[in-house]
């Protein structure tokens, strides 16, 4: 990787972390509703859109594990959002995939926090 590209990526990382923090909050709010009786399609579309963006960016910016988990979660969500009425309860694999992604999001956000980075 060229020095210029590394500089660009380093400059973009904090902005990505800001986005990631927003997604983290959103996922935390949505996650309990996936097991409840909320209207699923809008929730699933929101999650799919977020995982898609995360999958595209995270790997490029060096967060490989996060990118891979986001891809896996997106792959689980695609058939559910394409279906007219997703089955209830959601398959355990979907929830497990989202939970694994949320754990990695927590880890990345924690690693990037000022206390850990010394900023």
């Amino acid at each position, binding site marked *: *990787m*060229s020095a*210029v*590209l590394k500089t*660009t*990526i380093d*400059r*973009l990382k904090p*902005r*990505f972390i800001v*986005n990631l923090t927003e997604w983290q909050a959103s996922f935390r709010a949505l996650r309990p509703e996936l097991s409840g009786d909320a209207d699923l399609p809008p929730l699933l579309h929101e999650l799919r*859109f977020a995982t*898609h*963006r995360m*999958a*595209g*960016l*995270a*790997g*490029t*910016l060096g967060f*490989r594990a996060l*990118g891979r988990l986001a*891809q*896996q979660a*997106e*792959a689980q969500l*695609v058939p559910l959002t394409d279906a007219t009425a997703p089955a209830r309860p959601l398959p355990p694999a979907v929830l497990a995939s989202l939970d694994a992604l949320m754990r990695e999001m927590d880890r990345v956000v924690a690693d990037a926090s000022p206390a850990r980075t010394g900023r």
Partner: protein
Amino acid sequence: MKILAVDDDVLIHGVLRTVLAGAGYDDVSFAASANEARMLVGAVSAPYDAYLLDIQMPGDDGIALCRWLRKEAGCRAEPIIMITSMSAKTFLDGAFQAGATDYVTKPFDVTELATRIRQADRQSQANRRIRDDAIRLRALKAALEDMRRVDLTASVALDDVDGALEPLALENYLLRLGRGDLAGTSLIAFRLPGITRLHARLAATAYRDLLADAAESILAALQGSGALLAHAGAGAFVTVLPRGFEADLDEVAALASQVLDDLGLIDDTGLPIAAPFVVAGAHHCGMMTSGRDAVGVLHALSARARVDSLEPAEPVHQDGARQRFGLVRPFARR
């Protein structure tokens, strides 16, 4: 190379800007949606040379944008590289059906992305060369057409036709012959009645080709007579038959018309060219005919054929009578 990159994620814009700059491409515009991209494409005076389109975007996706670029924005051959995540590769079929030329996957492999962009650049340059060559070719063709354009009444040199001379050369040929040599020589004029319309309808090259084909058709119909021919302008052809000619001239005209028709000539728009011949006049040289007399007859026949050609089509032999030229000395030799 002028590039338009479309992705709803502005962080991706930053990555793409740096990668593209690192590969030597600084002239990059960014749009965050298909609608914004359409506005940019519509606003630029010089078109983009290549496009990078994210497939999955809110609103119209990259596939719809790709289809729009190909069908409505006139981007017929410019490279369009689709950007897709690994998990969305199933969308690629639709992207290629919409006219995409390549794709890259997110997360970006910087080396791969730069390679694809350079490939697109090569394709773009090749497209530009083809486009420029086509423009040059059209200009050359137009210039050539202008050079080849002739007035309706001007005679056209038919250099590629064996037996065809310029009118002056045909006159000189007659002037060189003595009285005895001219005896038995036949002069026949043919014309193409619809020549005014054809001259207006055909491009210059097609008009010249028609005259050459017409001359060859007449000479084919007169085969064996040793005929020499010149185009006298306005679709009039004069022929000199040194060995004389004994045949029904209407049949000769009909045969020449058939030969021309068999060539299946068409104009620039693909419409058939119908050009039947009519005999405009004929003269048989006697023992006392001098070369100067023969040239005078040639002028008269040419003038009559030209004038008749410019008039509405009308058969020369209105009563249907056959015009036959009996030779004083059959196949007289000079």
